[in-house]
């Protein structure tokens, strides 16, 4: 708990600006190189494009200076770099699609979504002055999450695309509600678990050395989990199902510190997956594809064949160590090169080197998020930051692992890189929330408050911000504040 000890903290905004410029340079250089690689000249609009991207990033930086001066200086530049490289790749795939007279124009739309996403993230930072405000909406979040997850099943607005019913389309605007569900679910889990963590961890029967929770403590969580899984089975969306499940297990583990949760969770999931694989042909097909992608029969099968996966692997192999270079590969030969398989596209043109760099970016982003969780002082913030950081890492793992055949392929988007408005919006909101919490985590505690006083329940940050910000004046029973403080002293 080094973070609660008084020591000078550098806000890090200067560092952030420097890193931002690097991220922008990467993004704009990528964009320019695509033009050079495909048409032999720098795109005509590179200045306008660069100016727009820079304006967005700098605006976000200024909002941070204004509203969250102590926020982690690395998170924003990494997000900008990933988003910018994704944009360059999508622009490159557009050019390839246009050459083959396929539907294109993804880059423009993605640029629009980027602008909207950054504005939304800035709004979150401006409007949400203290992340603990969200705790008030624990049960609202639960209801919203359930609605979001169930939305694609609603007739008329719900749409089935490529076998999965995960889309909602209202008046020409489509979205994947599950992308937002993961955020609100994280809010719900954080709020609920922080209240019930002690009873979940300590009360209950012990079976075979595993501490089992009491059913009534578990009830609401089980309901959310079961309903979301049931709906997801109906929507045939394995990726989101896996994602929400991973989020759930991880947050439960953070809250209770019980390894038994991991064991129970894994057992439940492996059992569920095995059942699903036998009960639903489309799930079984995914396993076939994973295990034997090069069998001609499975390669040719349609739908549910391994053609897409294998073509993605061909793309990656074509990239080799150093890649073909921007604009010199054939990423468009892989179906969904701009969305689900953008990792294969990047791997082809940027090579193993580029892909490892991108993976390192994700590692830095998520480890920074987890660092924020460790640093922040309130249990709700810890759980929320931990959950959000983990969900980004886990989503990346599921997507990249699927494309590289480490795990079976599921349909998820690569955070920030892949084409898709919902995904981009949701991930930028996650970044905003992590920035908000990291501001709290890195804000120096007043020296006088660093020594625990008898008024143990008082929030440690009460003196540093206005009470109107939404901090609960009196922690509810079962809140982790006392535990945390004692833990910090030991």
């Amino acid at each position, binding site marked *: *708990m080094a973070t609660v000890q008084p020591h000078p903290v550098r806000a890090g905004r200067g560092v952030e600006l420097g890193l931002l410029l690097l991220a922008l340079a990467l993004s704009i250089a990528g964009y320019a190189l695509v033009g050079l690689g495909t048409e032999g000249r720098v795109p005509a609009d590179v200045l306008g494009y660069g100016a727009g991207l820079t304006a967005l990033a700098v605006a976000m930086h200024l909002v941070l200076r204004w509203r969250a001066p102590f926020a982690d200086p690395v998170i924003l530049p990494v997000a900008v770099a990933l988003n910018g490289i994704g944009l360059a790749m999508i622009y490159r795939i557009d050019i390839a699609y246009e*050459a*083959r007279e396929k539907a294109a124009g993804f880059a423009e739309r993605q640029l629009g979504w980027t602008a909207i996403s950054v504005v939304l993230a800035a709004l979150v930072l401006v409007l949400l002055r203290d992340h603990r405000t969200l705790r008030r909406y624990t049960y609202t979040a639960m209801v919203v999450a359930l609605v979001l997850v169930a939305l694609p099943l609603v007739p008329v607005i719900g749409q089935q695309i490529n076998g999965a019913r995960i889309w909602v389309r209202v008046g020409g605007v489509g979205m994947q509600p599950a992308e937002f569900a993961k955020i609100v679910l994280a809010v719900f889990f954080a709020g609920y678990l922080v209240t019930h963590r002690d009873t979940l961890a300590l009360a209950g029967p012990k079976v075979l050395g595993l501490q089992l929770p009491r059913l009534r403590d578990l009830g609401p969580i089980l309901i959310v989990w079961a309903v979301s899984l049931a709906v997801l089975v109906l929507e045939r969306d394995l990726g989101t199902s896996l994602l929400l499940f991973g989020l759930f297990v*991880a947050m439960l*583990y*953070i*809250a209770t*510190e019980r390894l038994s949760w991991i064991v129970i969770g894994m057992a439940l999931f492996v059992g569920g997956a095995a059942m699903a694989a036998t009960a639903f042909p489309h799930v079984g097909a995914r396993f076939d594809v994973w295990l034997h992608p*090069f069998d001609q029969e499975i*390669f040719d099968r349609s739908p549910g064949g391994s053609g897409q996966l*294998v073509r993605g*692997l*061909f*793309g*990656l*192999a*074509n*990239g*080799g*160590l150093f890649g073909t270079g921007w604009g010199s590969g*054939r990423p468009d*030969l892989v179906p969904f090169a701009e969305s689900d398989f953008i990792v294969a596209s990047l*791997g082809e043109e940027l*090579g*193993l080197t580029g*892909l*490892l760099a991108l*993976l*390192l970016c*994700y*590692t830095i982003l*998520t*480890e920074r998020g*987890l*660092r924020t*969780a*460790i640093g922040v002082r309130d*249990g709700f913030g*810890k*759980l929320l930051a*931990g959950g959000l*950081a*983990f969900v980004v*890492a*886990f989503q*990346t*793992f599921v997507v*990249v*692992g699927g494309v*590289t*055949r*480490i795990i079976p392929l599921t349909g998820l988007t690569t955070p920030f890189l892949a084409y898709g408005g919902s995904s981009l919006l949701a991930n930028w909101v996650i970044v905003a929330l992590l920035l908000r919490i990291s501001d709290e985590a890195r804000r120096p505690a007043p020296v006088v408050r660093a020594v625990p006083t008898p008024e143990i329940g008082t929030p440690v940050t009460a003196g540093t911000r206005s009470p109107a910000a939404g901090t609960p004046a009196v922690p509810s029973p079962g809140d*982790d504040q006392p535990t*945390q403080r004692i*833990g910090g002293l030991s």
Partner: protein
Amino acid sequence: MNTPLRRLATVVLAMFVVLMAGTTWVQYVQADSLNNDPRNVRTLYREFGNARGPILVAGEAVASSAPVDDAFGYQRSYTGGDLWSTVTGYYSVVNGRSELELAANDALTGRGDQLFFTRARDLLTGRRPEGAAVETTLLPAAQQAARDGLGGQEGAVVAIEPSTGKILALVSTPGFDPNTLATHDTAAAGAAFSELDAAEGNPLRSNATRETYPPGSTFKLVTAAAALESGAYTPQTPLPAPVTLDLPQTTSTIGNFGGGGCGADPITLADALRVSCNTTFAQLGMDLGDDALRTQAERFGFNDPSLTIPMEVDASVFPEDLDAPTTAGSAIGQRDVRATPLQMAMVSAAIANGGQLMKPYVVQTVRSADLHTVDETEPELLSTAVSPGTAAALRDMMVGVVADGSGTAAQIPGVQVAGKTGTAQTGDDEAPHAWFTAFAPADAPRVAVAVIVEHGGSAGNEATGGRVAAPIAKSVIQAVLGS
């Protein structure tokens, strides 16, 4: 809650390490096998992106690539329609490649080992890599004569220069126009392929090298060679020539073409070959035994699956463990003996070359884009088929066939032609295959040729090798000698 968060951070780190390892596995360890997967169209696209070298005949490009403004960059085109398709094969975005486009692919794409220095220089100087030109051994006049001779009939012609093994003509009919497959309109290319694949006479497959037929009486050259090589026979050895020959262990018999006798009984070995007497050669085959016939056939190149020219060639077959009746049938080129037209041309070529069988080849030189010769095929001895004495005896016997036997249709004024006819029963009720193999001039051979016209061609049941196939061989020989 910090302990589980730290552990979770470790787990997250481990997840990313696994991802990095997985990516490395695919992009580095597995990359080679993935890049070489036949389903990986990138290889083809990459080749299309570079200038593919031309295939040349007598200095003229019969297959060449020109830059076009589409996703592939270069369009392959073929001149002469189906005249050269047996040799060039096709090069298609959709259906891959065949024949020389396949066999010489490394040179044409510039990836071959012999082009390493050219490639390295292109890389250093920033020159756009270009494939090498492949110059063939084909003689345009001979190829044209062969193609014209076959006309609309299904069949094949192979002409070889006996002293070197150079292939002067290689034609299979029906042919196809490779341009229809080379189009970048994938739907059209796919449709053209399906149509050719289903078409009568297998236009996409080379009858000359990829199809084996019963060689019929042309195989009597091999049987006669085995007899002479055994030392127990000379061309003048008298042999029985009954009207029908009863086959041991069976109730079946072998008769002569037309059902008559062979003009004399007994008959000399030379006369038996001249009139193509079945009963004599069937008995001779049984007397020699299947082992002697097989050994002799293999010295002419039968049962050798490794031969490439450099296109792959189907092995001609003289099977193992024959009993007396099948040996008798095989000795006259029926039953279980199968031969490609190339194989029968090789038999004549070996006899023409004093018994020395040269390895046939169709690629003369490989030149890099700057016309520097990077590879040149040297004539190579494939085997010694017969002794010079046997070769000379066989030559004289073959001269008799054309001068005064079943092959008179191949006579050329002023040129002594040595040949052998064949009329191969096909087992079913269809007309027999008409064969002719020959070389000329007999005393200083410059060309050996084999012709097959499937099921008698336009002559149908009336067809014999002498009547249908010999005139085609004659025009090919004239084309070579006239040049």
